[in-house]
């Protein structure tokens, strides 16, 4: 295991080694413990300024980063696309340079273009944390998924993880695939062929278009939200048909092993990718994911923001 962390940025899981991923997960254990103390705040990033720069709308990821930063004693400002000068024609680089002129130490970026965080990380002294870029990566979501699996099942290597739904447009799926494979899990992607093309097999995963064949051997099912806002009609015949073919209904959930974990990055569409009863059932760890997301983001901010630049 690596005994040291040396990165100022977190851009994706593709570039992290298995040791580095494990390092973040172990650091997360320590930060999860902070949430159980009388005083749930540590001075680790006291005096640092964090900018939450969300060019795409997001409430839960932004709030999670914001609370993580508060618990580390950092000062936080939130900038959203509509409030920023991006709508007035300023380029991403100029906006970022302005933020740096304010001596921001950490920039958490959500952007609709893949590679935007990398672009800024190469140009700024500040730490850049990718909070989701286009259909590319969403590393902190994958890290909290990995952490939740490791917490519940005590290991990741050797587990069979099914990722179900809108894979093609999903940065969550991509980051999960990189992380899970590096830590030795077996991954099967499930969904209609328009959203889960065979090309994904090149990454080292299996692809299936029949959910009922996959559920019985799964140790974890991760259901992705159907992203209505990104869909064009040709990918997607209709909600009713999707539910019939791929929705995790109460009936279908009976195919799962009793100890199979049910995960969802949220926000869930009850009755679409998952039935209400299943989402609230005993196998569901959806709310653990939210709690762990806070601890993972504290760990990531502490590690990247705590490095001398």
């Amino acid at each position, binding site marked *: 295991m690596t005994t040291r*962390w*040396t990165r100022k940025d977190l851009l994706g899981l593709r570039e992290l080694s298995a040791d580095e991923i494990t390092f973040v997960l172990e650091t997360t254990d*320590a930060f999860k413990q902070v949430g159980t103390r009388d005083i749930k705040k*540590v001075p680790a990033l006291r005096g640092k300024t964090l900018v939450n720069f969300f060019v795409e709308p997001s409430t839960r990821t932004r709030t999670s980063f914001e609370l993580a930063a508060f618990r580390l004693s950092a000062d936080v400002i939130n900038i959203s696309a509509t409030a920023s000068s991006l709508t007035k024609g300023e380029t991403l680089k100029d906006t970022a340079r302005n933020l740096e002129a304010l001596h921001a130490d950490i920039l958490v970026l959500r952007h609709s273009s893949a590679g935007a965080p990398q672009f800024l990380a190469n140009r700024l002294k500040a730490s850049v944390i990718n909070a989701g870029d286009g259909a590319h990566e969403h590393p902190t979501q994958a890290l909290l998924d990995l952490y939740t699996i490791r917490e519940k099942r005590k290991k990741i290597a050797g587990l069979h993880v099914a990722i179900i739904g809108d894979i093609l447009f999903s940065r969550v799926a991509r980051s999960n695939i990189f992380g899970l494979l590096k830590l030795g899990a077996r991954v099967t992607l499930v969904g209609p062929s328009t959203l889960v093309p065979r090309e994904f097999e090149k990454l080292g995963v299996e692809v299936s278009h029949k959910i009922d064949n996959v559920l019985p051997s799964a140790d974890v099912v991760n259901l992705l939200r159907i992203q209505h806002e990104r869909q064009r009609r040709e990918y997607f015949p209709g909600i009713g048909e999707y539910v019939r073919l791929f929705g995790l209904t109460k009936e279908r959930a009976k195919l799962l092993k009793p100890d199979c974990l049910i995960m969802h990055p949220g926000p869930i569409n009850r009755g679409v990718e998952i039935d209400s009863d299943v989402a609230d059932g005993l196998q569901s760890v959806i709310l653990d994911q939210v709690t762990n997301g806070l601890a993972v983001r504290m760990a990531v901010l502490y*590690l990247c923001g*705590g490095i001398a630049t």
Partner: protein
Amino acid sequence: MNQTRQKASVAVPILDAEAIRRALRRIAHEIIEGNPRLEKVVLAGIPSRGVQIARRIAAFIHEIENIDVETGVIDVAMHRDDVGTRRELPVVRASKLPLPLEDRTVIIVDDVLYTGRTVRAAMDAISSFGRPARIQLAVLIDRGHRELPIRPDYIGKNLPTATREQIQVRLQESDNEPDAAWLERQ
């Protein structure tokens, strides 16, 4: 190469396994004398060797008084005052203390006491768990050079050093090497 060879350090032994055993046993006796209500004592080790030393002191107290003193772990990484000045960060361990702390005496345990900054961070960390009745400090070696007004209550060995010297401690449990402490001089 020549440069490195000239800089090769000289190692001066300070404590062997037997001396470490005697020092920790004496500290156990002193803790017993100073704390009539031993059941209220928590030995909180700073990772990694402080944790091992805390467990050993607890074992000596058990041997002498047949009382089990609780032990804990207090990781200070997130309470340090030098964040943002290091090029690499070590892993942070989860802290673990028996709660509530309100009427207890927490004894911070570490291998080497130097500037006192780690101990300050440990006191800060303990405060986030609650408000103990007392906080005390036990160290295997006090090497001087304090930068803060901090003074240990229990000391295994006092060893005046120069700032360019380094103290190395090895313990069987954490290092898989025989117990030893030595001083390295550049």
